[in-house]
């Protein structure tokens, strides 16, 4: 699923609020302030989310004038890294380390504190030896209309994207669904209100049989 080729699946949002002084320079500053940063394997951090270049997931630097395209189109890419040792792997390595510790100490039992220490050490060691799982999500933002399209349909990704976008741009995102489409496409507010009060139809019943249960 790529933005440039093949089929696409996406979620629609609209950015609410005034763009204010958003321009090439302020957008660049905002993206760089919320750029992707590698997860420190020595930390407890399991996830890192931030902006990267569309053409290079290892760079978060933009040249002047390359962000806002003609027509007010902005193409962004969000990188989401996850570094999490699978529970089963962690458990197996902890058991092995505990056995080694007992053998080395010629004992048959570890204290609670020793067990905790083994757990911490093994987890750190495995994190240092693991590569984060990387996900790249493309975003199209039309500054002229406020339309934002996220080229992923996963709920978890959408939640991470909304949080990153709203923090970076200081704009609220509203999901576009069958309710929001109506006002985006110019249906009068009172008409949308009237629709929200109508009873769902029951087409399989003769006229006059009432609304849906």
């Amino acid at each position: 699923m790529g933005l440039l080729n093949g089929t696409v699946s996406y979620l629609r949002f609209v950015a609410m609020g005034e763009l204010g002084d958003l321009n090439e320079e302020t957008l660049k500053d905002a993206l760089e302030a919320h750029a992707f940063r590698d997860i420190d394997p020595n930390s407890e951090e399991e996830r890192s989310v931030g902006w990267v270049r569309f053409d290079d997931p290892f760079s978060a630097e933009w040249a002047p004038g390359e962000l806002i395209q003609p027509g007010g189109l902005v193409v962004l890419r969000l990188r989401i890294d996850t570094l999490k040792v699978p529970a089963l792997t962690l458990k197996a390595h902890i058991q092995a380390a505990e056995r080694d510790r007992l053998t080395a100490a010629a004992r048959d039992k570890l204290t609670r504190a020793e067990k905790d220490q083994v757990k911490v050490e093994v987890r750190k060691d495995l994190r240092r030896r693991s590569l984060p799982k990387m996900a790249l999500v493309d975003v199209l933002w039309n500054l002229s209309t406020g339309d934002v399209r996220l080229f992923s349909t996963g709920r978890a990704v959408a939640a991470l994207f909304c949080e990153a976008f709203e923090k970076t741009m200081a704009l609220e995102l509203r999901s576009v669904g069958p309710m929001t489409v109506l006002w985006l496409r110019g249906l009068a507010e009172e008409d949308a209100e009237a629709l929200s009060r109508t009873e769902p139809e029951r087409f399989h019943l003769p006229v006059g049989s009432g609304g849906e249960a």
Partner: protein
Amino acid sequence: MSDAHERFAALGREFLTWLWFETERNHGRVNLDGVGPIGVELTRRLALETGGAAGENSTVSADTPTVVEEARVALRTGKKVSSTRLILEVGERQFELAIHGESFVFSGVKLPTLLTAAEDERLAERFALIEELEAIVDGLYVQFARLRLDPDAWPETRAAMARWVLASEG
């Protein structure tokens, strides 16, 4: 889900069911205000739901799912289309997408063949096509919403849809 969200989710199901009705009534063409007749085909997959707390559903997978008896039975038992795959023909161009009536999520979107080769121009062209596709689908939906609110036109359409559902009995 709030009452308003549930109501509009139901409206999304009514919309897709109306679209099916319109394609059968007009031999695969639906008149889109401001554009004219466009080709609309419900294809490959049709999911139907009752909605509400009961939430019974049926899914039909076939090249032309609208002619499958199971889909007709689902209509007659009060289910409406919750999602389907659509082929939209506008002039010489063809768009294809899966649409969920309750959320308006577009997936598996196939756009018409691009005319440009340069990467930046391809992106701009694909973006323009995505916007055009949304304008078509949103336009059909708003058209349905206006019809749904029309006290003169809707009762007639609603009665015609009821006859269509009944006539689908095999």
